[in-house]
């Protein structure tokens, strides 16, 4: 089984599909703009949040650096509270373990709250292949599960669909969906609420991800806005939490500093609507919570990242801020990346988890090195530098065709001198006049881009002309 699922279509195909999808374009623009503005305002109006971020970022880096003793401590705490811990090296290990637990307990119906780790290991496909019914309960995830698609944004998985498409989807795929008479958004949401209610109440097993794992107390923290993780943790008798190794934080104080950051950076709220903290299964005296709780700690390449030059990326809290500011993401959306992890963070971790062979094209082509992500990231992860590092590696490992390389080399040489650059402007002017749009590098480039006309006289040329005129005068 592959380390990380990928879309087998080549990048140009994914790119062009995204650029020619007007619904995607409109929704992406709206969603990213709204989230960006909200993030900036949230920190501005809340200095305590900005101060906590400074502390959180240092402590998170430290926790990642020394994670082995912390993971051992978390494991010991969870076990002491009656939970069970399993370390999964691969996606297959996760699937096998959860299937075993489900079979032992005669589980039939499984409900899930949103978790990128479960997308990474393709948990639904693994469980469904064995005959378990799995239901995604986050509204966006529910929609893409019905459509058999992958998330297009780590926070808003169905950001690429509009209300009419969702109405049509419900009608086609959900029983009794004739009552979905209108395409208004509250109505669609209510319909999903009713349908998912039945799933919540009849499920035997719940699966969550985890935003943080506190070593000191063995607590898994799950953050949502919809309240579905609360249902998942409160109602079914068996609970599984799939948590990446990098979710570890040292202690309760470290949690206090970091707990607001995903909401502040992700959606511009001081805290998400629901934060659930699980530290053990239900005791005999308690009414709610699971009878059994299993924490699955996911490696899947994380230890290797930890031991290599990109360790800092493990401090990521998956807030999505870097996606929202990225000019490439704003154009092509999550599906353009062909990985469940998209945007700048996906450009770094997809090749690190899934291999350069498959995901080398992400650092190579899907970054303009504008540094917007670096500025937005609450954990100050040096994403652009990491992308450049991976880009060099990709280029060194996997060569472009000779003709393309020669063109880039000549271009690089030409622009390395002032005269070369000026001559290229003159050449472009001539090429433009001759309508030479379809040769060499320009051919692919201009398929989905507009080439701005080269000025009849550039600023520099005008300036030089003006200088000469003054000297003469």
């Amino acid at each position, binding site marked *: 089984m592959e380390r990380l699922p990928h879309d087998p279509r080549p990048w140009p195909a994914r790119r062009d599909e995204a650029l020619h999808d007007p619904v995607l374009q409109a929704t992406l623009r709206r*969603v990213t703009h709204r989230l960006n503005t909200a993030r900036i305002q949230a920190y501005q109006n809340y200095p305590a949040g900005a101060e906590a971020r400074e502390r959180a970022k240092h402590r998170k880096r430290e926790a990642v650096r020394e994670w082995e003793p912390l993971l051992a401590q978390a494991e010991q705490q969870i076990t002491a509270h009656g939970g069970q811990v399993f370390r999964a090296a691969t996606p297959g290990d996760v699937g096998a373990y959860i299937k075993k637990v489900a079979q032992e307990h005669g589980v039939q119906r499984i409900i899930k709250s949103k978790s990128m780790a479960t997308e990474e290991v393709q948990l639904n496909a693994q469980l469904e292949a064995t005959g378990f019914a799995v239901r995604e309960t986050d509204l966006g995830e529910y*929609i893409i599960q019905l459509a058999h698609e992958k998330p297009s944004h780590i926070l808003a998985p169905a950001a690429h669909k509009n209300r009419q498409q969702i109405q049509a989807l419900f009608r086609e795929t959900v029983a009794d969906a004739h009552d979905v008479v209108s395409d208004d958004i509250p109505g669609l949401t209510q319909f999903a609420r009713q349908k998912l209610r039945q799933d919540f109440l009849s499920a035997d097993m719940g699966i969550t991800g985890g935003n943080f794992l506190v070593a000191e*107390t063995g607590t898994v923290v799950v953050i949502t806005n*919809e309240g579905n993780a609360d249902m998942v943790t409160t109602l079914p008798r068996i609970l599984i939490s799939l948590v990446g190794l990098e979710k570890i934080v040292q202690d309760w104080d470290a949690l206090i500093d970091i707990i607001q950051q995903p909401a502040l950076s992700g959606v511009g709220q001081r805290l998400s609507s629901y934060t659930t903290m699980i530290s053990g299964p*239900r005791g005999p005296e308690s009414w709610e919570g699971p009878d059994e709780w299993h924490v699955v700690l996911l490696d899947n390449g994380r230890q290797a990242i930890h031991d290599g030059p990109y360790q800092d990326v493990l401090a990521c809290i998956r807030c999505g801020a870097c996606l929202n500011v990225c000019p490439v993401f704003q154009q092509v959306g999550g599906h353009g990346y062909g990985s469940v992890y998209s945007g700048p963070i996906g450009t770094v971790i997809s090749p690190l988890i899934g291999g350069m062979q498959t995901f080398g094209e992400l650092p190579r082509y899907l970054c303009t090195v504008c540094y917007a992500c670096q500025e937005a990231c609450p954990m100050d992860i040096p994403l652009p530098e990491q992308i450049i590092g991976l880009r060099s590696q990709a280029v060194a490992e996997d060569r472009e065709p000779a003709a393309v390389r020669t063109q880039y080399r000549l271009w690089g040489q030409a622009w390395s001198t002032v005269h070369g650059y000026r001559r290229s402007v003159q050449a472009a002017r001539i090429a433009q006049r001759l309508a030479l749009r379809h040769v060499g590098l320009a051919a692919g480039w201009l398929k989905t881009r507009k080439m701005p006309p080269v000025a009849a006289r550039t600023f520099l040329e005008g300036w030089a002309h003006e200088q000469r005129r003054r000297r003469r005068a």
Partner: protein
Amino acid sequence: MHEPVDLFTTQWRLLGGEVVLADAAVGWSHTIEDVLAGVIDPAFPTVVGFDTGDWPKDVPWSALCETIGARFYDRHDLDVLSRQEALQDIVAHASVGVTGAAWAAADTGTVALYASAQTSLSASLLPPTHVVLLPKRRIYATLAEGLRAVHAQGAVPHLVKLISGPSMTADIEGQLVVGVHGPRRVVTVIGDW
């Protein structure tokens, strides 16, 4: 400098929650009756409530609910049923769930609930309206203070839930909709009992 109560009220409302400031002179029962009458759905005339020991004393819950045409279930009424029956048959069909709160935080507009023998988190989750009875003294100025209190007691409760406003989603076209899985309305009644 804001009083925690004022700041909590501002933040909770900002998130889409409602606040009722109860006045001892009016009587807690009166205020609670008013609040319940305003949120009860006649099609589902059931109220479930779990007293953590910090509710105002001497509120005649059953009688009070009767006057607004609803039936009241507390922990003891539900204990005679299996957990599954209680959840599916009663709590899932109630239109109002009433709980207390372990504490609240003003700067984030957050209410904290712990699962225990006395409290049921389901009352805060399944019904379309959640009413929180919050004594003034339980409101901290900041979330950080509240969270420190969770740990200060020694062991962390096995299930802690922080609620900051109603359940919401922006998953369709980025438009905010309240009440997707959890309650649509969250009403906090604050008083000095």
